């Protein structure tokens, strides 16, 4: 059973669109949820993290966690060509140091 599932895309949107990226997970012990952005051949860059359920907003980015559905989302408003990258969700339980990653969703924002 896969721990974290993420649609790999690719996803292509016009500049200015709202982008919705999603992950589902199976392990109810996961408590911390992260979104990373990864440019080609670079390391993942932390965008946002949230603890347990709820929403968190940072500029054009909003992260949502629905633990009852085991579903997390990242919304990007007013998407820009510079947002073109692979977006990885990651999560871990309250104990242990192992982060579990999704496969990543490739996003292209077309000018």
């Amino acid at each position: 059973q896969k721990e974290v599932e993420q649609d790999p895309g690719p996803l292509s949107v016009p500049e200015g669109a709202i982008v919705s990226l999603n992950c589902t997970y199976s392990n109810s012990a996961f408590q911390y949820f992260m979104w990373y952005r990864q440019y080609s051949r670079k390391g993942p860059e932390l965008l946002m993290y949230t603890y347990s359920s709820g929403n968190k907003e940072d500029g054009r980015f909003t992260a949502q966690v629905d633990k009852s559905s085991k579903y997390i989302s990242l919304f990007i408003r007013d998407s820009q060509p510079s947002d073109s990258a692979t977006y990885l969700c990651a999560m871990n339980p309250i104990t242990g140091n192992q982060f579990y990653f999704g496969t990543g969703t490739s996003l292209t924002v077309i000018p």
Partner: protein
Amino acid sequence: EPEVTQTPSHQVTQMGQEVILRCVPISNHLYFYWYRQILGQKVEFLVSFYNNEISEKSEIFDDQFSVERPDGSNFTLKIRSTKLEDSAMYFCASSEGTSNTGELFFGEGSRLTVL
């Protein structure tokens, strides 16, 4: 802005050779990690390290792998006898506290190619 740095950026080696990948974590961070990403696949956890010892490791981290913090600043991953399937991007990461803080900072990676 503080960052995790890794060397080399790319290493090509022959199967069976030993490889050492080096990392300098963010200076006030206490937890250190190695992850790897085989081309086109997920980022996978290898090992976490705290207080000069391994705190957690995955099934991937077998006897061919070892980690060390030799001098208080560098954090190294050694692969004793490389196999073709070890070809991947290896990412070092560090965090200020335990994974409970939720913030894990990655380096840019070391690409290992085993021929």
